[in-house]
């Protein structure tokens, strides 16, 4: 026990004198979590809350374009720009501005949209009514009306998710305007009363959506950027210990201390035990620090505060086992590498890959089927699921047992491979 404690103390001393390592372990994750949460919260708001300036070219100048303009203006998503330097924007100038990246979007309303839409609606209504014998007029010689296109110019740098959100938004708006026009046409044809106060057909939506977060008991945790990012990036930070830990092992091999230790009456497992305890303390400190940032710092930056919920002990256990998995990976990498130049870039890249396939950046359910299968082998995926079980689904120890079991197994397997590899390598 004394040897294990001495090894732990030595590791703490070594780490405390490695300023670069400490920055990687504590400062980098803090910067990362704040930056990513701000960015993700910002992009979330870009689509839903804050106003994105867009160019609006009205070649129609009718009721429909007015309605589109009003609806766009009323929506929380856009700030409408119709003039540049007091000159009315044309389709060409809008296209050029978007291409240069000055604006992310230009909406161009085609000529005669209002009149043609009205004509089209009237024709359709007349057709239907004549089918039912309500209308006497003959509809055989109806003037053909060409379908209209609203041109949407997107900045090429705009991401697909933003494009989809905008297109859905405008599509919904146009559908609503079309429906309203149809309602009004029917109203006009069927009712004697032209008054808007007494509509024959109700325009309001019959079906609407209500977002409900399933919960157990009284605690309701609202999913938001903080709630998703803090666990994801805490895990990422925990796994970043792979870099200093593997470098620590490689250095020990290169500076001869490892050889000396092999001549001492101390087992390799005791030496690794000292490293494991030290880096586990680091992981848990990182976890507490990240939670503290989520709870106390993020709200000061205008972000939603982290709701830890009532299962703090389970969260702590998940962090502990995630830390063990990261340490196992670091020990394996340090044992297999011969130089810091091998272990550092490989460590950094592999952690980023494990994070990517583990669902830290893109949720696993959005990945292609094959990658969803691959994600099952990432310890970060197990850790993330366990964190989400507690953070978002209010799970307890029972719910996270499968994930922490896998994390423990990963630790045991990686350390076992390291010990066997070390023995084999020594048998020269």
């Amino acid at each position, binding site marked *: 026990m*004394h*040897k294990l404690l*001495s*090894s732990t*103390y*030595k590791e703490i*001393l*070594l780490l405390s*004198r*490695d300023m670069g390592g400490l920055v990687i372990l504590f400062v980098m994750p803090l910067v990362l979590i704040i930056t990513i949460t701000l960015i993700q919260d910002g992009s979330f708001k870009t689509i839903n809350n804050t106003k994105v300036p867009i160019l609006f070219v009205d070649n129609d100048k009718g009721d429909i374009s007015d309605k589109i303009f009003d609806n766009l203006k009323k929506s929380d998503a856009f700030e409408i720009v119709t003039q540049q330097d007091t000159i009315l924007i044309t389709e060409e100038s809008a296209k050029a501005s978007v291409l240069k990246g000055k604006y992310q979007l230009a909406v161009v309303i085609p000529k005669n949209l209002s009149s043609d839409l009205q004509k089209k609606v009237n024709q359709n209504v007349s057709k239907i009514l004549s089918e039912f014998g309500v209308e006497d007029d003959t509809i055989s010689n109806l003037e053909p009306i060409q379908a209209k296109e609203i041109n949407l110019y997107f900045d090429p740098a705009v991401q697909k998710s933003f494009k989809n959100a905008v297109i859905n938004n405008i599509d919904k708006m146009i559908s609503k305007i079309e429906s309203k026009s149809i309602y009004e046409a029917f109203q006009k044809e069927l009712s004697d009363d032209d008054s808007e106060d007494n509509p024959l057909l109700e325009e309001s939506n019959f079906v609407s959506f209500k977002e409900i977060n399933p919960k157990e008991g009284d605690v309701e945790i609202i999913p938001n950027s903080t709630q998703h990012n803090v666990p994801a990036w805490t895990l990422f930070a925990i796994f970043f210990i792979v870099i200093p830990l593997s470098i620590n092992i490689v250095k020990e091999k290169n*500076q*001869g*201390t490892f*050889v*000396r*230790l*092999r*001549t*001492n*009456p*101390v087992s390799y497992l005791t030496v690794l035990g000292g490293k494991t305890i030290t880096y586990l303390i680091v992981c848990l400190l990182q976890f507490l620090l990240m939670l503290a940032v989520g709870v106390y710092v993020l709200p000061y930056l205008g972000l939603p505060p982290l709701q830890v919920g009532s299962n703090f002990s389970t969260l702590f256990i998940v962090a502990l086992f995630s830390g063990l998995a990261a340490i196992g990976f670091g020990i394996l990498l340090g044992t297999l590498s011969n130089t810091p130049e091998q272990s550092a870039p490989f460590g950094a890249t592999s952690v980023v890959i494990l994070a990517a396939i583990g669902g830290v950046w893109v949720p696993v359910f959005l990945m292609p089927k094959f990658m969803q299968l691959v994600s099952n082998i990432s310890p970060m995926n197990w850790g993330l699921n366990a964190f989400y079980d507690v953070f978002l689904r209010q799970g307890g120890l029972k719910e996270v047992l499968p994930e922490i079991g896998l994390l423990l197994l990963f630790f045991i397997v990686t350390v076992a491979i390291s010990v066997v590899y070390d023995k084999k390598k*020594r*048998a*020269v």
Partner: protein
Amino acid sequence: MSVPVIHINNVSKKYKNTDFFSIDQLTLEIEQGEIYGLLGPNGAGKTTLISMLCGLLKPTSGQLEINGMSFKKDAKKIKQAIGVVPQEYALYPTLTAHENLMYFGAMYGLSGENLKTKVAESLAYLGLEKFTHKKIDTFSGGMKRRVNLIAGILHNPSILFLDEPTVGVDVQSKNVIIEHLKKLNKNGTTIIYTSHHLTEAQKFCTKVSIIDQGVIISTGTPAVLIENTDDARNLEEVFIKLTGSALRDYA
């Protein structure tokens, strides 16, 4: 007659991916209380032999016993009984001399006041008292060598292996190291030592073996070896006569 503390019987060592034996059917006994020099040109097999005696390498064949024990059965006991001073500075550069020695002392099972006293006494004896709490990476080569030595002897080993303990140090440091080793030997420690400093070996060793290409080509006290070699006035001349003057570069 003294008791052999090291018994090497027909030991061979062949590294993987090589087609020659670094140690070839070597048999040797080292008696208690000796200062035994393993001398030889580069690539002769000295470090391989010492590495096998320290448990760092396994022999390909043959038997090896230390204090009547083998590494197969009693590795921990042997490691507790021996001290090793490797050729490289096997110390943590960002830790102080005191922190390094406290750690390596603990690895031998020493603790508390006993360990603190031993560390302080050893540092003082080797002239490093003033530098106790200075980091190793600020030390000169000679100072590092002295700390390297202390790390291998804190637990009073009965057998001490030294792989070129005075390489790259100034005369003053070398004298301090050699004097300390003589004192340890006087107190009962058997010393097995490799070096390229043949003048030092001649003065320091009670017995030497000259090894070349994995085999012992001559064994005896320095005086006897000199006497038995024609026209040799010192150990260096004996060495050249026995191993030749061709360069022994290897990679």
